């Protein structure tokens, strides 16, 4: 996009007309000399500008005075340079300068709407100061603020010339562009300028408008380029060729490349035919670069001339036409029709890609849609498709954040009727595809647990629990978290499911459930706990010997049958001391008999000891203890 570089490159190919815009008499300076002089002027402007910006009053400064002196010695007066946002131009060419300040000066002037600036005679220090003041003045936000020309006039700076963009148009219409230095073609054809040659007007207007748009961030650029393209084709052919040659010579400059790019391959081929032999290589070069940038080979069809295209008939390039070939082609394509299954596979593969490319918000939207498609397939009873959509959700959630999104969306999508379909139609539950099991396990446990809580039918509860049991093997967390749910029946089912999970991290929760207010939960928890943690299970069972429910005390005795801990005897002693029911007493004695520990033996001896006035209950116990001791010896 660098105009400066492009210009420099171009100059090697097509030398620009050398004439300067200064009225330096009949003698014409060489291009190199003009460049050097212009560069000296720009350097001086830049130095003066820097001084102006550094000192409150630059006039006494040496640098400023030297700059003013240099500005008084151009090749001739009036001396005017065009202001582009990228720098000064003289004779349509950028003026090389080493001074950074030159570009800040042109930018500021450009922003102020100044198209060109210069001097009608050697500038005074005061006038130069006025110029800088006008340039550095912020663009007034009110419409009444005077324009740069008016401001300058008000200050009485007579030696300074500025041309505003609007003014430039007027001037160019009135005087055939004599007012501006920025028209290389002007100087090449001074007589054409007077007659209003459309091709040259075209170039001037286009460049001017382009620069103005560029300063404003280029809104309306398309309109500009299209209108100029259309106008190009409204011009007479000879003018078109002249312009086309100009475009080609400057194809490295953005504004001209925009125009050239507008030309279709047909346009290029047609105009290319009319180019002079000297310019034709430029077209070839342009086309090669354009094709390369579009990823095409340089010698493709778009460079074929009309004649070549007309002569090289398409039909000749095809293998052959005719009914047989047509049929063959049709057969080949028909064989590739994927059918519903193939379409579906393609869609899920595409959904994978869409998810992987989506941004955060898009990911949420797509995950929601795919989750809905998964459940819709379930509702249809098509578990295979449900599994395929489920796979998309699983594979598209690589990060923690995305997993969280999928979890939310799956939870939302698993409405009761869907779960109903999954877990109550037993044939579905039986062959849930592994992908769906994984999906539900990873992302759907909470709604399933909720469903279990609401389910009244025993059979359905059983199938839900059996799913949760297998799910808990990989992911017990959601079940454990719900163990403090207020609904006792849910806790009981969760304990049941966790019992067979083999996950020790579930033990603490189940241990806590052993003290649940509801005996049905306690029973289930004490049954489950030894499966998860043997020691904890024993401890809970020993506690259970003290349960206020007789049935649970009996359960505890049963659970303790093989427990090795010495605490068991102590617990049994306490139980027997608490006047339990006959059934419990006998069960306790049986358990003591089964335990081959010293403590058990001592306890049995104590129970077997004869006691007068013992109640009937005691007698039963004694008898049982004696029998147990007899059986031992």
């Amino acid at each position, binding site marked *: 996009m660098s105009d400066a570089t492009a210009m420099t490159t171009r100059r090697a190919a097509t030398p620009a007309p050398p004439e300067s815009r200064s009225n330096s008499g009949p003698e014409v300076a060489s291009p190199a000399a003009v460049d050097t002089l212009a560069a000296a002027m720009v350097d001086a402007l830049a130095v003066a500008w820097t001084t102006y910006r550094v000192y409150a009053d630059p006039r006494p400064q040496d640098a400023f005075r030297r700059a003013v002196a240099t500005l008084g010695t151009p090749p001739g007066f009036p001396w005017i340079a065009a202001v582009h946002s990228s720098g000064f131009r003289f004779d349509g060419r950028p003026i090389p300068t080493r001074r950074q300040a030159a570009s800040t000066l042109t930018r500021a002037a450009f922003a102020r709407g100044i198209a060109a600036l210069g001097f009608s005679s050697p500038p005074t220090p005061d006038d130069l100061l006025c110029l800088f003041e006008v340039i550095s003045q912020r663009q007034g936000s009110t419409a009444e603020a005077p324009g740069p020309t008016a401001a300058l006039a008000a200050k009485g700076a007579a030696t300074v010339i500025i041309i505003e963009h609007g003014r430039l*148009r007027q001037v160019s219409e009135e005087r055939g562009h004599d007012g501006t230095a920025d028209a290389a073609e002007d100087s090449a054809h001074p007589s054409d300028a007077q007659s*209003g040659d*459309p091709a040259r007007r075209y170039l001037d207007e286009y460049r001017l408008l382009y620069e103005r748009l560029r300063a404003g961030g280029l809104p309306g650029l*398309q309109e*500009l*380029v*299209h*209108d100029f*393209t*259309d*106008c190009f*084709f*409204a011009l007479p052919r000879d003018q078109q060729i002249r312009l086309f040659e100009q475009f080609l010579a400057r194809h490295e400059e953005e504004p001209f*490349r*925009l125009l050239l*790019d*507008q*030309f*279709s*391959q047909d346009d290029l081929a047609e105009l290319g035919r009319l180019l002079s032999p000297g310019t034709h290589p430029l077209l070839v070069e342009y086309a090669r670069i354009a094709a390369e940038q*579009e*990823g095409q080979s340089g010698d*493709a*069809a*778009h460079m*074929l001339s009309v004649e070549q*295209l*007309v002569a090289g008939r*398409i*039909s000749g*390039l*095809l293998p052959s036409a005719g009914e047989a070939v047509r049929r063959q*082609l*049709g057969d*080949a*394509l028909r*064989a*590739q*029709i*994927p059918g*519903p*299954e*193939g379409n579906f596979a*393609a*869609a*899920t*593969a*595409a*959904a994978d*890609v*869409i998810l*992987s*490319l*989506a941004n955060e918000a*898009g990911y949420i939207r797509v995950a929601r*849609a795919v989750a809905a*498609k998964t459940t*819709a397939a379930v509702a*249809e009873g098509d578990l295979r*498709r449900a599994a395929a959509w489920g796979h998309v959700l699983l594979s598209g959630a690589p990060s923690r954040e995305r997993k969280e999104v999928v979890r939310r969306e799956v939870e939302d999508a698993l409405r009761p009727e869907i779960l109903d379909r999954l877990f109550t139609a037993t044939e579905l539950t039986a062959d849930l595809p592994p992908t769906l099991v994984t999906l539900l396990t990873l992302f759907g446990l909470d709604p399933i647990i909720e469903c279990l809580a609401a389910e009244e039918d025993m059979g359905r509860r059983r199938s839900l629990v059996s799913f949760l049991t297998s799910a808990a093997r990989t992911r017990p967390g959601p079940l454990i978290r719900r163990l403090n749910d207020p609904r006792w029946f849910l806790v009981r089912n969760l304990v049941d499911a966790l019992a067979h999970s083999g996950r020790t991290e579930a033990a603490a929760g189940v241990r806590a459930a052993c003290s649940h207010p509801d005996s049905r939960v306690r029973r289930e928890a004490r049954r489950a706990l030894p499966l998860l943690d043997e020691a904890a299970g024993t401890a809970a069972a020993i506690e259970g010997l003290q349960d206020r429910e007789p049935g649970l005390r009996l359960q505890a005795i049963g659970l303790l049958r093989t427990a090795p801990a010495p605490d068991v005897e102590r617990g049994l002693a306490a139980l027997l001391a608490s006047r339990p029911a006959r059934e419990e007493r006998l069960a306790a004695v049986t358990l003591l008999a089964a335990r081959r520990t010293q403590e058990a033996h001592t306890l049995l001896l104590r129970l077997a000891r004869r006691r007068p006035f013992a109640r009937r209950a005691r007698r039963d116990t004694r008898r049982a203890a004696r029998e147990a001791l007899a059986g031992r010896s």
Partner: protein
Amino acid sequence: MREGETGALLTALRRAATLHRLYGSHHPLTDISLTEAARAADVLAEGEPAQLTIIDGSLYVNRALLPMASLSHSGFLQTILDHGVTSVTLVPPVRVEDLAVLTATLAGDSPEPPTAGSVRLNEDNLAPAQRDEPRDERRMAYTATLDLLRAVSLAVVRREQVSLSEATAAVRTLMDLCLDDPAAALLLSTMKNHHEYTFFHSVNTCILTLMIGQAAGLDRDDQILLGMGALLHDIGKVGISPSVLQHPGRLTPEMWKEIKQHPQMGAEAVLLASEPGQEVVAVVALEHHARYDGSGYPNLLYFEEPPAHTGSPGAAAHPLHLFTRLTAVADGYDAVTSRRAYRRAATPPRALRVLLDGAGTMYDPDVVHAFIDVMGEFPPGSLLRLRGGETVLVSRPAGDPDRPVPALMMIDAAGRRLSQPEPLSFHPGEVAAYLTPERAGVTPALILEHAGPAGVD
């Protein structure tokens, strides 16, 4: 042909209004366009005063609705209405100065609309009962589909729930049109409107894709899915900023980055809207810029590991869905033959050459061949200059490269425009040059209105 002259008039006026805004009045470039407009206005008026009226967004000349001009100049007609102009009366001979006042009004530069002279604004408008509206089914189908796309795009932008059921119905209608009158369908697919490029392009791509689909022997269900994919392939462009879409040159890397989002954005919108069984439509949107050779965008991982969606055993497996490969060719053809932000339109035969150049890299070679077979060497709607000097419009494919191509003469050897085009078949050897509609000053689809519902030729 009123449509043609009106189109020329509107084009010239639009350009003149823009130039007026850029340069002010009395600029030579503005004058060129105004002179062109005056010429078109005189031909249109044919010696009698003619009134152009805009009613409900449609353009009428005297009592006759000009559907094609209404369609292809909808943007400019809106601009005209925006400036308070509802009718323009042309009293021949139309003077350039009077037209300049009109363009000044359209450029927002003239407070007093003229009521005298050769161009008068807002004289009494036609009452609805006076209108004479030809109702051509084919054009109605086209217009209805455009409306649908506008509605769908709006919903996508607003992130509202989108339903594809209307798209299904629209595709079904276009499909029947392609089946009943293929030549008319192909002519209809040459409708262009730069102002609404994406919508027109989408309908055209849909028609052209359906034509290949029919040739390939797809059944109705598959054709509907294929047509929906083609119709919605660029729907993701609603999310691309206009400054990028309208950039009149090669794109910067940042612009490319944005443009490259449209396949996945479109695919997302379609996937979200799809009912079970319609999801494959999203595949076309996602894949349509992936090239046959695996390059292009977005990066489809499954080029390494193709999804199992190839057809019957024995068919060559290709990772891109067949629907995508069919759509891509039609998409490319319409894009090359349309004016884009960055390029003028190319002629149809040139576009076929571009496709052929891309066969095997950009496009599936079999599909390219099938497409050329459908379109013929000179696709319907092609404008050609014959060696004898006549300008002809191809009206239907020749069917065989050695048979004469059925066409209509639009401009005779002496350069006269025919008010009633005459059948004139030609042999390919007689072709001297290809012309774009703009260059020839002919809008190919207009011939449909001209020929009436009975069909072309």
